[in-house]
């Protein structure tokens, strides 16, 4: 998976990431169904982001998960673990069969992302932890003259946590242009719509005011995701924030944009329908029209 730092050939990459996103969604659906687990909506909203990251952006090597020069990917929204484990398995960090153990007794794969699984950098699950740790990694890379980049994927709801804003102040102060924060902005948090609980808007302006270079994109458009992530850093000394507008439950019609699928697990019938919809989706994550 070690990729060239320049933009990979667009067509081949799109094909690869589209297939990868389909596999991630299907795996995550099967995992939460088998385990009767929650958070499928959160896993689906970030599946395209993960597919592009692991399918063409991150300089990582599944054969050497501890390779010193690897890019660091931190999933701060640890409740999206199902799709994060799925992308690691699908890209060869560990056998795909392990996914069947998700949330089972004695498994390595906990319901929130847990270190000890090849490719997982940080155990997460409590919100607001990833970006400060990402700042530390980026600061170390600067101090060591290392070339790796640090990517932190956050949820929108977790931006309620003050610790993130401490880190958002810190990164520009220390000119951490090797740091990329990605917000999976699916507009629904644990117990309500973001705008009704604690409105984040104007979100891009907030990051800009704190000194970040910001790109707002459709978080399901693989070409736009790849372009936005490849371009960072946009300005020397400035960290990058990618605000990815997404849909919670993306790719499964009856899950999309519904709070309930933060908690519910599909039954057998729902799983069959969901898998069929995912299999039929095109590169933009939309269902193909017949």
């Amino acid at each position, binding site marked *: 998976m070690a990729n060239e730092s320049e933009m990979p050939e667009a067509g081949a990459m799109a094909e690869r990431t589209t297939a990868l996103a389909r596999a991630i969604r299907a795996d995550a659906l099967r995992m939460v169904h088998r385990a009767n687990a929650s958070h499928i909506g959160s896993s689906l909203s970030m599946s395209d982001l993960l597919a592009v990251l692991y399918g063409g952006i991150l300089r990582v090597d599944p054969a050497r998960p501890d390779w010193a020069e690897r890019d660091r990917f931190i999933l701060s929204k640890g409740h999206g673990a199902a799709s994060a484990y799925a992308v690691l398995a699908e890209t060869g960090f560990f056998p795909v069969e392990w996914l069947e153990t998700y949330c089972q007794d004695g498994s390595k794969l906990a319901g929130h992302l847990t*270190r000890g699984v090849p490719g997982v*950098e*940080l*155990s*997460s*699950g*409590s919100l*607001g*932890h990833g*970006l*400060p*740790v*990402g*700042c*530390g*990694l*980026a*600061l*170390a*890379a600067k*101090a*060591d003259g290392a070339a790796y980049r640090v990517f932190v994927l956050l949820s929108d709801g977790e931006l309620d946590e*003050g*610790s993130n804003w*401490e*880190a958002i*102040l*810190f990164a520009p*102060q*220390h000119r951490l242009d090797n740091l990329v924060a990605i917000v999976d902005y699916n507009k629904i948090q644990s117990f309500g719509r973001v705008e009704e609980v604690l409105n984040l808007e104007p979100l891009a302006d907030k990051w800009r005011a704190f000194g970040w270079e910001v790109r707002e994109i459709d978080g399901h458009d693989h070409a736009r995701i790849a372009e936005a992530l490849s371009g960072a850093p946009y300005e020397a000394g400035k960290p990058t924030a990618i605000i990815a507008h997404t849909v919670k439950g993306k790719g499964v019609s009856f899950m999309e944009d519904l709070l309930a699928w933060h908690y519910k697990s599909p039954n057998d019938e729902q799983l069959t329908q969901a898998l069929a919809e995912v299999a039929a989706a095109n590169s933009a994550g939309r269902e193909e029209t017949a």
Partner: protein
Amino acid sequence: MRNTFVSTLCELAERDDRIWLLCGDLGYSVLEKFAARFPDRYVNVGVAEQNMTGVAAGLAMAGKVVFTYSIANFPIMRCLEQVRNDICYHRLNVKIVAVGCGLPYGTHGYTHHGVEDVAVMRALPNMTVVAPGDPIEARLATHTLAEREGPGYLRLGKGGEATVHADEPVFQIGRAIPVREGGDVTLIAAGAILAETIRAAELLAERGISAGVISMPSIAPLDVTTVLEAAARTRWIVTVEEHSVTGGLGSAVAEVLAEAPATGARLLRCGVTAGPYSVGGQAYLRGLNQLDAAGIAQRVASVVDMAGARAGRR
């Protein structure tokens, strides 16, 4: 102790370029020495302890040995979940240094009284908890924690603590330091209250009570063997700490004694009991909690005398 800590850290950083120091916008007149000598490995993170602790975790994940520094509760309680999840859970090489623990910031009020920190820190997995008793122990503890893999907590007084040890003692994690022999009572102290504890033993001697003193800088892991030997040797074990009697050294020793085969030894816990609403200097607050030498001696003498009187009646 804080100056000893910083001097020691400078020596260590000279030899080991993995050592970093982060502070949460505190350390005026203390940390400048390190900042001037190692500007590339010093960060004032700002008044942002959660981020400080997360940044420390990230640096440690990249191979650094990171010390975080602030006053009393700030580097542990404000950011307790970062300490628990990011540092302890990941067994990272981050050493948290809290200065002014206990009651040295007494006049500042309860927000600045570090009197529950040991209870909190010793409950965390993989965390080594060390409370040095004097500047010599502080120097040795800093060395030991820097060299020891994994999370550490260094509980320091504020400054101006007297040197207790005449010679450099053997300092090891999980090992107590014997200070004074005594046949009736064993006083076990952790942290800067050690000097008062030794004076209490001298006062007790004047009253005909022979009190031994043990310094127990390593609270987690505790030197269980030394506690049990003392319990076999003397009728009373007395713990002394500038910390709540709940959850600290006294509780750790109580846990050992409660589960040990019957030794016949009784336990007295001396610690902070007066509650959060008292204002005053360290000496005043120590007196209020009977944590000055006279207060400790008085409490010890009263239980020993009472036990003696009861035994006499039988």
